[in-house]
């Protein structure tokens, strides 16, 4: 069951990549730090050593025209690290959105159906997760 679910997610990535138009690919490096606020003195900022800092190298891919009907989407792959005495690798994170926008005959409003998936690891509970959201809007 688990393997089938993962295979479906991978298949969705491949299919959307092959069929996509208007593509863009960007690489990103994001640094998240918290908690910057000192609980005893809101105005003070903590020392860097006491912050929890995560480094996120990311690759993101968008496809489709935002203003027209058809397929449109976004996919992101990240490999986060925690920054401390050394760089510790966390679990990879995968996120994707795929939408199909269409217009019924003799109507002007766009309808949209889509699928959003998230795959990663919850560091608090030490469990991998897969969330799938299906949506239809009109």
């Amino acid at each position, binding site marked *: *069951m*688990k393997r089938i*679910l*993962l295979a479906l997610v991978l298949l969705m990535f491949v299919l959307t990549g092959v069929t996509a138009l208007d*593509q*863009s*690919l*960007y*690489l*990103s*490096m*994001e*640094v*998240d*730090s*918290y*908690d*910057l*606020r000192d609980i005893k003195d*809101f105005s003070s900022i903590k020392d860097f050593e006491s912050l929890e800092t995560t480094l*996120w190298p990311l690759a*993101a891919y968008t496809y489709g025209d935002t203003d027209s009907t058809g397929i449109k989407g976004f996919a992101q792959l990240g490999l986060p690290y925690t920054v401390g005495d050394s760089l510790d690798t966390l679990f990879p994170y995968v996120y994707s959105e795929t939408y199909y926008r269409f217009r019924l005959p003799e109507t002007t409003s766009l309808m949209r159906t889509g699928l959003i998936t998230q*795959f990663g690891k*919850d560091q608090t*509970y030490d*469990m*991998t*997760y*897969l*969330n799938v959201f299906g949506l239809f*809007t009109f």
Partner: protein
Amino acid sequence: MYNVLEDADLIASIAAAPAAYMNAGTELFENVWVQANLSVSLPSVNYAATGDKSFDYNIIQQGNFHISFIQDTFQIRAGVDQNITVFDLYTDNGLFKDADYTYSINPWISLSFSIIDNLNVYVKPILYTTDGNIGPLLASVSVDYFLF
């Protein structure tokens, strides 16, 4: 679903909700825009498919408002994200007997600017609050390079 790759049993839940969305925005002055987004799911039904196989009935309202100053190579935005969740709408004790709510209001500022073609820098501090209590202040700095 949780425990997707672990040997432990899969933990699964299913949620469904009809939702209403409203998005509005306009240009106030030259280069200055405001935008508001609002969504309400009424109700959200969450079914835990493992354990006690229980149902939860919630109302989830989310929104954000921000004002932007936008130029070709520089953007600054200031806004607030908010969420209200009313949970336990229906329990074994009846409708609204155990209902309670939680809310969050998270103000933020973001700066983004383009240094050279295809290279953008993005800075965003955000302050999290829950039920009126101030939570962590998180800062994100991101550098994006567009290959194509």
